């Protein structure tokens, strides 16, 4: 499974998200690659789940994949509560 933390430039916000996502998935025993990408290089390919700041939702309009939007990017609980159900749904959908 590949999880992509998305932000405007790939130097700050997405790295913070990536850190929390990695910790949460590890704590729940979920094996995943977690990447931090910027909008410019994100074309939607190869991401099983995209995690982005709520404020960036307009940049994801039309994107068909699984998206998790986070309001408070340093709230581990919010990230966990929103991300885990989507992770489970993705894993359940695998053959």
């Amino acid at each position: 499974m590949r999880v992509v933390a998305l932000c405007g430039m790939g130097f700050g916000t997405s790295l913070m998200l990536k850190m929390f996502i990695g910790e949460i998935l590890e704590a729940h025993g979920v094996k995943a690659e977690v990447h931090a990408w910027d909008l410019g290089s994100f074309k939607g390919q190869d991401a099983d789940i995209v995690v982005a700041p709520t404020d960036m939702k307009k940049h994801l309009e039309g994107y068909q994949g699984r998206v998790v939007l986070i309001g408070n990017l340093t709230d581990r609980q919010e990230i966990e509560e929103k991300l885990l159900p989507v992770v489970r749904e993705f894993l359940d959908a695998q053959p």
Partner: protein
Amino acid sequence: MERLARCLTGRVALDVEARDWEEAVRLAGEVLEKAGDIEPAYTEAMIRTVREIGPYIVVTPGVALPHARPENGVLRAAIGLVRLARPVSFGNEVNDPVDLVFPFGTPDRDQHIEVLAALSRLLSDPRRVAALRRAATEEDILAVLRGAPLAPAGS
């Protein structure tokens, strides 16, 4: 947090007046300019980023992390803190208004990671963020970062 405290030393401005988010980011950039960490062009790039991509840099209630790209004028990895006298709105639907502004810059993809991780942990602890809002001096701010015992609530 020791490294974060060391990086912020001499780059803290408390209770600064700003009319709007743009002035807040400009003042935050000036703190790093004065320290010799960035060129003035980087400050303008931080403002441009918010205008073009949006106020997603307001990462948690009341806290903004303006930044731009290494090629926009970073001289060395750096982070600062400007605490505003009055919070300003960045237009972020979840985390406005903002009173703590941490501008940062990095010359490449790696040099800032450790400090950014320390900042993320700090910001995930509401008691420490509240202590940053109460701190009277730069020394008090640095003490919070170094893990000084927090005053009991209400004191």
